[in-house]
């Protein structure tokens, strides 16, 4: 409880000083906005997971292609690679679809809402209680995102339902473990540099802070993570994210309660 209070305090402090400007291109969650129509994004996400039970660090690599199908719809396709059970290999694949259904834009502000869905296949062992279709489980996720940009400050929240099934290659869920979960997130970001824009070539430097949680109604178990991250946007086209994710509270058996993220993302305009 003390930790949660501390965490809320940190979030409030972050929000209160967040006047200078922010971006909504969050590191650990998606905003309600979409990528431009006919553009293609290449996203390479590297996760280092501190697998304490096993006394090792697991490396997970998620190469992802993202497509702006139209102004309201974007589609992602990803491969999931990991060395959790031996040499680095492809252990699964997934797709993610986001549909923006509300957009109230004003100069330097907007309020947007989107619905999203994820479907994934995974064939690795199901060792843990945490549900994660983006990397560890076969299953699906459906959710809603609301994002408010207010004179350069962005705040985003999401709520989703996640359902898993047995993984491929006979890797079943342990009896008694939950198969359904409710995920929620609260994200905010702040633009640190440049103080004033002069060209698209300026490197943007953003600081993000996100709270990510999961509750499993079948067992009453949960976790709450806090995830600060740094983001650099080069030539207004290439994004580099460096993130750290730490469990603040929880009673789920997870692969890692501490993880690091390094991501490179490049956007190709008008290619499709």
């Amino acid at each position, binding site marked *: 409880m003390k930790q949660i209070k501390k965490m809320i305090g940190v979030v409030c402090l972050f929000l209160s000083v967040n006047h200078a400007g922010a971006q909504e291109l969050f590191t650990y969650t998606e905003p309600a906005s979409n990528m431009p*129509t006919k553009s293609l994004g290449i996203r390479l996400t590297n996760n280092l997971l501190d697998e304490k039970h096993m006394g090792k660090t697991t490396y997970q690599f998620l190469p992802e292609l993202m497509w*702006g199908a139209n102004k309201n719809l974007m589609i992602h396709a990803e491969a999931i690679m990991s060395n959790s059970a031996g040499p680095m290999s492809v252990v699964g694949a997934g797709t993610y679809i986001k549909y923006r259904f509300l957009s109230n*834009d004003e100069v330097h502000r907007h309020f947007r809402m989107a619905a999203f869905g994820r479907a994934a296949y995974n064939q690795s062992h199901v060792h843990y209680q945490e549900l994660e279709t983006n990397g560890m489980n076969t299953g699906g996720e459906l959710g809603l995102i609301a994002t408010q940009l207010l004179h350069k400050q962005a705040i985003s929240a999401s709520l989703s339902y996640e359902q898993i099934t047995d993984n491929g290659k006979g890797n079943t869920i342990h009896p008694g473990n939950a198969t359904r979960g409710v995920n929620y997130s609260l994200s905010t970001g702040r633009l640190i540099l440049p103080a004033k824009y002069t060209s698209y070539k300026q490197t*943007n430097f953003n600081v993000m802070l996100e709270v990510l949680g999961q509750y499993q109604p079948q067992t009453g178990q949960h976790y709450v993570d806090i995830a600060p991250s740094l983001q650099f946007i080069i030539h207004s086209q290439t994004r580099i994210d460096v993130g750290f994710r730490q469990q603040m509270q929880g009673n789920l058996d997870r692969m890692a309660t501490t993880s690091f993220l390094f991501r490179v993302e490049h956007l190709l305009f008008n290619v499709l």
Partner: protein
Amino acid sequence: MKKFLFVIAMMTGIVTSSFAQVKSALLTASGLTCSMCSKSIFKSLEKVPFVASIDVDLNTSVFTIKFKEGANVDPDVLKDAVTGAGFAVATLQLIADFPDTQLAKDTHLKLGGATYHIINAEGQHVSGEKTVTVVDKNFVTTSAYKKYKKQEKMKCYETGMAGSCCGANITAGTRIYHLSL
């Protein structure tokens, strides 16, 4: 003589001129603050066939767009480029070469190949370069549109299509944009 021509023009319902060109535009995009977002709009506008060059003020999200000499300029294509990038148009000002004419409320005229309806002139004489603002739905912010809609009761303002309110000389269903001077 000018008054006589003006009356004739009003009777025919539309003022046309072969040299009525739209030379450039100032487009303010809404819903963004970041340069990556701005660049996606820039790249989208760059693909518009009648656009010659674009300058941008990243702090105000104002795009100064120069059009190709003699090209037809369709505001919908500019708007679609911005919405396709994921954002919206907050204001669109056109800098046009006006024919030597007098403009009254509800004058129709052709500029750069598109048909326009003046919503707030008071019979002033215009000649040469003038900046006008497109005030149709999706060319202004939602709040500004509500304000204009209260003032402009004509059906064509709501639909963006010529109707019975536009007179017999404009084919019903023609795309019609509304301008504020």
